[in-house]
């Protein structure tokens, strides 16, 4: 298919449709209203169904039901709305249901603001809901990648029977860029028939029970071990990241994800012009996190700079990756303020000049 100039939100919707998603349950919230709006006109065209739920609590439980029936389903929201979904997300993870959840992050806490942020990193990667569960979290940095990750997300969700979260920021939702959808896209995983789905018990297979309750603690522990084994498998097989300029020599390694990584890439070019050597690693899967890759990429560098639109959340994972081997610096913006290439350059120069304070160890 030819390239189309699309808003990120619409590309996400279209990517879902292309991936065979026929059902969308959602509730409006800025800055991602264009996703439900797109789905409300697009899905009827392909015989699908859009339901505007009465709330995010309800939307996430609708998703829970629909996924249990084996269909490909998606919802999207932004930060406060995702908080309201955490209970159901924990249920879906516990019941091992494949769903795609999109969080177009805005600034918090509370009602906060509607501008871009990355302050839901912890919520997405460590579990906003209760209990030991993990989402597979993918963070795009462009509209095209958002579309691609949504499509991959459906395959991964089905393969692992696990919720997948697409974690974008307000920029991803609002900006327009060229997007291409590949007609003959093949699933990235071998997909099995969903014999576990609750579609009516006709005696030809065991009864399907979509459930996260196990009153017997030994059984529940076993179930948890099974989940953990699955997360370990993801950690082995699903790590995604990209590196920029790591083939050359460099003094500073930048770690950033999402659109702020693009800001950093602009800064890198300008730094190069100024004769400062920097490379970048961009985690794409936030869970599983590319610890190993970051550790390796940091080898050549004298120092590491983490850039986030938050008070510093991913930085904990970077610290876990590096375990004190390299000095780590941080540049963060909050409240919907964006980091600019100029700021990042400035920070890198400070690090080089020994004027930036290292992030304290403990």
């Amino acid at each position: 298919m030819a390239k189309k100039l699309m808003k990120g939100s619409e590309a996400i919707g279209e990517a879902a449709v292309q991936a065979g998603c026929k059902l969308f349950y959602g509730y409006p919230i800025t800055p991602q209203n264009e996703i439900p709006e797109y789905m409300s006109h697009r899905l009827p065209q392909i015989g699908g169904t859009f339901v505007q739920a009465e709330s995010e609590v309800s939307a996430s439980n609708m998703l829970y039901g629909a996924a249990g029936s084996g269909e490909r389903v998606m919802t999207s929201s932004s930060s406060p709305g995702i908080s309201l979904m955490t209970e159901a997300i924990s249920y879906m993870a516990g019941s091992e249901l494949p769903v795609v959840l999109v969080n177009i992050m805005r600034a918090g806490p509370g009602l906060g603001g509607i501008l871009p942020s990355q302050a839901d990193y912890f919520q997405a990667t460590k579990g906003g809901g209760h209990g030991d569960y993990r989402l597979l979290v993918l963070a795009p940095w462009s509209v095209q990648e958002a579309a691609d990750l949504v499509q991959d997300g459906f395959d991964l969700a089905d393969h692992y029977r696990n919720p997948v979260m697409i974690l974008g920021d307000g920029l991803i939702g609002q900006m327009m860029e060229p997007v291409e959808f590949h007609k003959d896209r093949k699933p990235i995983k071998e997909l099995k028939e969903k014999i576990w789905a609750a579609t009516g018990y006709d005696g030809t297979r065991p009864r399907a029970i979509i459930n996260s309750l196990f009153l017997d603690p030994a059984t529940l522990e076993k179930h948890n071990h099974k989940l953990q084994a699955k997360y370990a498998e993801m950690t082995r097989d699903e790590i995604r990241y990209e590196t920029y300029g790591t083939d050359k020599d460099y003094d500073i390694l930048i770690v950033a994800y999402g659109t702020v990584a693009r800001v950093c890439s602009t800064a890198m070019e300008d730094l190069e012009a100024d004769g400062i050597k920097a490379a970048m690693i961009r985690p794409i899967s936030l869970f599983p996190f590319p610890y190993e890759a970051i550790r390796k990429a940091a080898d050549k560098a004298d120092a590491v700079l983490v850039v986030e639109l938050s008070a510093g959340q991913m930085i904990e994972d970077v610290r876990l990756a590096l375990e004190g081997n390299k000095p780590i610096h941080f540049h963060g913006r909050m409240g919907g303020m964006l980091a600019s290439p100029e700021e990042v350059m400035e920070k890198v120069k400070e690090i080089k000049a020994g004027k930036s304070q290292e992030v304290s160890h403990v």
Partner: protein
Amino acid sequence: MQNDVIMAGFGGQGILLIGKMLAYTGMQEGLEVSWMPSYGPEMRGGTANCTVVISDRPVGSPVIQSPRAVVAMNLPSLDKFEPMVRKGGLLLINSSLIDRSSTRDDIRILLVPANDIAMELKNPRGGNMVALGAYVGSSHAVPIDAVERVVRETFSSKPQVIDANIAALHRGYELGEQAVA
């Protein structure tokens, strides 16, 4: 080579639309592009702006703090974005609605009476097209005939307005080119 521009004005002046058309033209020309609207609190305040980046390499930051060009369609936009124009950059001022120029001497300033020209052309809503033309004329971010094709495509469902808009576009373009010359 990268071109980037912030276009800003009242909601209703068609700012976001010309930004999209510019980005779309860039894409048609095989360039990398991004278009980023403001969607912040200012929205209900009645102003709108967008940032368009056109480049021959993948677009880095889609948000530009020091843009190579600013198109200011009303006074609040001029006040807000004037200081941000990159040294040596271009500031295009809609002099129909803004009765001041800029005091900066490190940038190129282009006064375009966009609404007046549109009125003249009997296309009262065509001020945005004049501005688009003027930007393209002075930046050569994309070829003007490519823009013309996009205008035709964009308004294909309202054929009656095509000619007027193309006229406005070209009048703007001429002004832009002259200024560069």
